[in-house]
């Protein structure tokens, strides 16, 4: 069978990630990597701390990526990248983009300090956090990225997570680094553009990618993309950029802000929640969304704020 029309590609065809990797069926984290590598190209070094991706990549002597990886200690992604960058520069390679690639646990929790210090120095690295909202590699324990209400093995139904998700983007904004962006694997073109943009900026860049995890969220593997879209459409995970900690730009505007209930319904981790609890979650989402809108609106128009 042949068709006249050409196949439509909204992203470059070249793949730097291979099949055969060890992600679960329908893994959002795998897609995040696929998209980011498409944007960054081959002149890249990845520093990957302990996380699902240290398994997904495969077992020695194999790898599923066509770019080099430094599998580093759990708490060191950011500063390992700074070290690699400094080392490369001293041996004459000033071009390679050095990327720290970590999960939410490695970013919000055990790796936060190293990340904060890298940002404070404005070291020239790209930090990517793929956020699946728990420690998945070790079997679904709470992280500080776990949202309010969620079940994990360390926040059992009888004692579910009671604090809101840590606002890592606000924390990073307080560091006044040149570039921060949120993205979702449900919007690959947006994600692709941001990774490309981040590549061209100097200093510390932070890319926060929402990456559903069917295993940990007790969702169906085929719902991964759907979830990654819903979370944006209901403003639970808004998609925006922050320049120099000040200039906020909303990238995906919502014509109609959806309610969170459909989103919660298709995830086993929220199954136990009462209506009241869901209502209070909705309120919180609304409040945060308003706050974001006001930051976006009050962002003064500046091309670049000197830091």
């Amino acid at each position, binding site marked *: 069978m042949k068709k006249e029309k050409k196949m439509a590609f909204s992203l470059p065809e070249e793949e730097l990630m291979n099949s055969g990797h*060890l992600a679960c*069926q329908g893994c959002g984290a795998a897609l995040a990597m696929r998209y980011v590598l498409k944007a960054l190209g081959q002149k890249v070094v990845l520093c990957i701390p302990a996380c699902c991706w240290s398994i997904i990549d495969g077992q020695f002597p194999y790898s599923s990526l066509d770019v080099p990886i430094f599998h580093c200690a759990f708490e060191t992604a950011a500063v390992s990248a700074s070290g690699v960058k400094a080392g490369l520069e001293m041996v004459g390679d000033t071009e390679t983009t050095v990327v720290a690639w970590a999960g939410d646990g490695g970013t919000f929790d055990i790796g936060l300090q190293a990340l904060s210090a890298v940002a404070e120095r404005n070291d020239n690295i790209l930090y990517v956090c793929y956020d699946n909202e728990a420690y998945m590699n070790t079997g679904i324990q709470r992280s500080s990225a776990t949202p309010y209400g969620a079940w994990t093995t360390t926040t059992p139904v009888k004692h579910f997570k009671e604090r809101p998700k840590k606002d890592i983007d606000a924390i990073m904004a307080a560091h006044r680094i040149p570039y921060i962006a949120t993205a979702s694997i449900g919007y690959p073109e947006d994600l692709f553009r941001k990774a490309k943009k981040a590549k061209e900026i100097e200093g510390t860049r932070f890319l926060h990618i929402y990456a559903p995890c069917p295993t940990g969220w007790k969702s169906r593997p085929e719902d991964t993309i759907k979830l990654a879209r819903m979370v944006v459409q209901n403003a639970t995970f808004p998609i925006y950029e922050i320049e120099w900690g000040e200039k906020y730009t909303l990238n995906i505007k919502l014509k109609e802000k959806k309610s969170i209930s459909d989103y919660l319904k298709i995830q086993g981790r929220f199954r136990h929640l009462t209506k009241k609890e869901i209502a209070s979650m909705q309120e919180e989402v609304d409040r945060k969304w308003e706050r974001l809108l006001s930051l976006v609106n009050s962002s003064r128009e500046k091309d670049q704020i000197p830091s």
Partner: protein
Amino acid sequence: MRKKKRAQKIVFKSEKDVPLMAMSTGTMLHNKTGAWRNIKPVIDLDNCIQCGICWKFCPDVCIFVEDELPVIDYDYCKGCGICAEECPTKCIAMVEEEK
């Protein structure tokens, strides 16, 4: 067009063959994850509008394009069902694996 990469297994007979540090020298392509699949996507190409969406969303990079049409590489497809779910024309069906 899908570029062919080598997918051999690597066997170290002696410590002398092992590199100095745990450093990859091969690709995971040797690992045929098709064996993980318990349900299988099948594309009805007649209804395919070549939108590229299935290709775009496959987490296992196992939909490739041949003659401008999507083809699934069953050696690797894990059967997640994303392609079927996302296909705008619903021309991908998830069918039971033969036993």
